[in-house]
């Protein structure tokens, strides 16, 4: 009833191949965008921005990046944390070296630099496959963290090796540094997320995306039908690196404001983002969002229930939080191995026929 396709005819090819071919879907998508752009900025406060929305949006970009690599191209990476660090440190160096250039350009350039670095670390993927590759990307993780910690040039030789984001503004609105308004932080992340998601969506349903998926499904067969595995794998690493780099740059400059590589971009980050795409759904842009929302909201929600709602001691709550998140992850994998995106697809199928299923 709500989800009707009758009377929804495509009369041209562009209409047929648009992202949301069903009218209801399209309107829902516009509605979400409208709420995100026109409602939330006016009601957001510091807590919601810093604890929920900004990390959610930034992780969504990182998850899209990793999803392109892992979900679409089938190359498992455990180096996301360090690749985000590449974005963060390039952004820091650019921000301090060229203070007169807009932060937006710095963030995009950081994405580019990260893309180059990630492509370099993607080279072994031409020889190594599966879990061996996953563990091999850990080499990148540990080496890059060590490098950023060791070489003083990366952190401008500050006494402790911390980097901190100076104040920068876009069109006169401060977007980094401590004086940033909650809505400004939120908006800049939202704009980046929207653009990244658009680019990713259109890449993945075009010929590039089809090549990635062919490699994912069976690389030898793909090679036989004329997909160049080197080109496909390396472009996946590059595009993925670009998104992850943007996420890292925003994570440092807009969200954290100050960062230390070992603590902010450690191996936990890599696992966290991998969790997001698996819980959300491999090979789905929507899944990246759903997974990021789930992994960001879950701890905040559990903490507020246990400590705020039930008034339990914080250490008990923290232990229970581990148990519950671990349990939920396992439960999710058992109940729906293809993630939240699959649940969403099933829900749509059901809604199509509702209220008159066969």
């Amino acid at each position, binding site marked *: 009833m709500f989800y009707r396709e009758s009377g929804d005819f495509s009369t041209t090819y562009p209409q047929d191949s648009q992202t949301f071919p069903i009218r209801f879907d399209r309107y829902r998508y516009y509605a979400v965008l409208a709420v995100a752009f026109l409602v939330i900025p006016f009601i957001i406060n510091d807590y919601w921005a810093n604890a929920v929305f900004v990390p959610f949006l930034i992780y969504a970009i990182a998850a899209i990046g990793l999803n392109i690599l892992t979900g679409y191209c089938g190359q498992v990476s455990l180096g996301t944390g360090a690749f985000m660090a590449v974005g963060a440190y390039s952004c820091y160096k650019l921000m301090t070296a060229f203070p007169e250039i807009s932060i937006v350009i710095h963030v995009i350039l950081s994405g580019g630099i990260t893309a180059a670095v990630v492509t370099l670390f993607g080279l072994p993927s031409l020889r190594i496959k599966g879990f061996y590759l996953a563990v091999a990307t850990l080499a990148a993780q540990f080496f890059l963290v060590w490098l950023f910690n060791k070489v003083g040039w990366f952190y401008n030789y500050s*006494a402790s090796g911390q980097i901190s984001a100076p104040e920068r503004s876009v069109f006169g609105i401060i977007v980094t540094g401590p004086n940033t308004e909650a809505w400004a932080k939120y908006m800049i992340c939202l704009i980046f997320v929207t653009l990244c998601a658009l680019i990713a969506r259109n890449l993945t349903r075009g010929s590039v995306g089809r090549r990635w998926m062919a490699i994912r499904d069976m690389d030898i067969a793909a090679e036989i039908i004329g997909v160049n595995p080197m080109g496909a794998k390396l472009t996946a690493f590059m595009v993925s690196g670009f998104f992850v780099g943007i996420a890292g740059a925003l994570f440092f400059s807009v969200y954290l404001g100050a960062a230390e590589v070992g603590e902010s971009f450690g191996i936990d980050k890599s696992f966290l983002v991998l969790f997001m795409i698996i819980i959300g759904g491999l090979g789905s842009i929507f899944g990246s969002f759903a997974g990021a929302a789930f992994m960001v909201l879950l701890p905040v929600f559990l903490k507020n229930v246990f400590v705020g709602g039930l008034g339990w001691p914080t250490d008990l709550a923290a232990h229970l939080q581990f148990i519950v998140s671990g349990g939920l992850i396992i439960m999710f994998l058992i109940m729906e191995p293809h993630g939240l995106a699959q649940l969403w697809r099933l829900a749509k199928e059901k809604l199509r026929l509702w209220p008159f299923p066969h």
Partner: protein
Amino acid sequence: MKLLTMATAAIVAASPVMADLVFPSLSYRTGPFASGGIPFADGYADYFTLLNERDGGIGGVEARLIECETGYNTEKGVECYEATKGEGALVYQPLSTGITYQLIPRASADGIPIHSMGYGRTSAADGTTFPWVFNYPGTYWDAASIMVNHALDEEGGSLDGKKITLLFHNSAYGKEPIRTLEALSKKHGFDLNLLPVDSPGQEQKSQWLQVRRDKPDYIFFWGWGVMNQVAIQEAANIRYPMEKFIGVWWSGAEPDVIPAGDGADGYKSTNFTGTGTDFPLFADIQEYVVDAGLAAGDGQSLGQVQYNRGLFAAMLAAEAVKVAQELHGVTEIDAAMMRDGMEALSITEADYSSLGLPGFAPEINITCENHSGPGMAFVQQWDAASQQWKPVTDYMTSDRETIQPLIKADAAAFATENGITPSCS
């Protein structure tokens, strides 16, 4: 039904009618550093409980502690900060170098003071650049200098040609003392050798084999978490003379030495609070807090290094509240008044005695130019037989002449980078 009462207490506390003094406690009772975080958080909580139970709060206003678990994780720390700042938080004790660096700009913008007691950003000692950040009673650079002074005393006044190794946690925290030690090595003519250990530091064989080859005259140690236990164990394994092995104040608590058993005997560390329970105040804590069943922990950690340090942090906060109440003539102070109180804080030996803590810590006198207080600490030594830390020196001063220019330089760099004009308000 303790949980039920706690739940009701939480609901009562949540109702806004009650005026109170809010102290967030960003504790870490889980994760890799829990062994240090638990006693500290207990001490911090127990002191406020004591004040409420015994004196009815501070100046008649009840203190309310909001505990928030960070697990030593920066992002959780930010979440905790955002969640608690709206409650009228008076002062933050971030308890991790990473979270401190996060909160310095945020809290300065929001106008809430930070007390990073003996950790965090050293150059925050310069109150003209960092008006909202305090790190009394001392900084890492003080600690490094005090260690050098202790070595000087042991060697009869000269370290010329001696070899000193700095074994440090390869992170912001561990890298802090390098600058000072480099300056001091020029001044006193000792060779400084840097030995980093990557986090977490479970495997330190390479480093200790190197120590065994080089035979440094002293090892200064900046470790944290599992790195402490392993380093002390390895030092015992290679039979390094433990009295030459000196840790900073975060590497010298009971959980660090107990796993190594007798091997840890003689290990030294700096400290700025008294250890043990031989202070009159502990009788009150036992009576009003532990025996009344209100203790944050199981009551076993009383007198431990980290517990006493947490207690000291709470005491300093409470004293600053008293000063602020006096300055502004109101009992329900806000964060800005709290800052004024912290900046005018002065605790003399007589004050310590009247608080029931005679000789517990060095005298403190804070001014706008000096947010790090006296920079004094003493050296303590572990006695494995009695399972106690024994002080081996009196409170010693650091070489502020050498440190002060370094602090000025670092603060000035921060000021230019962030467009701050240093001044005293």
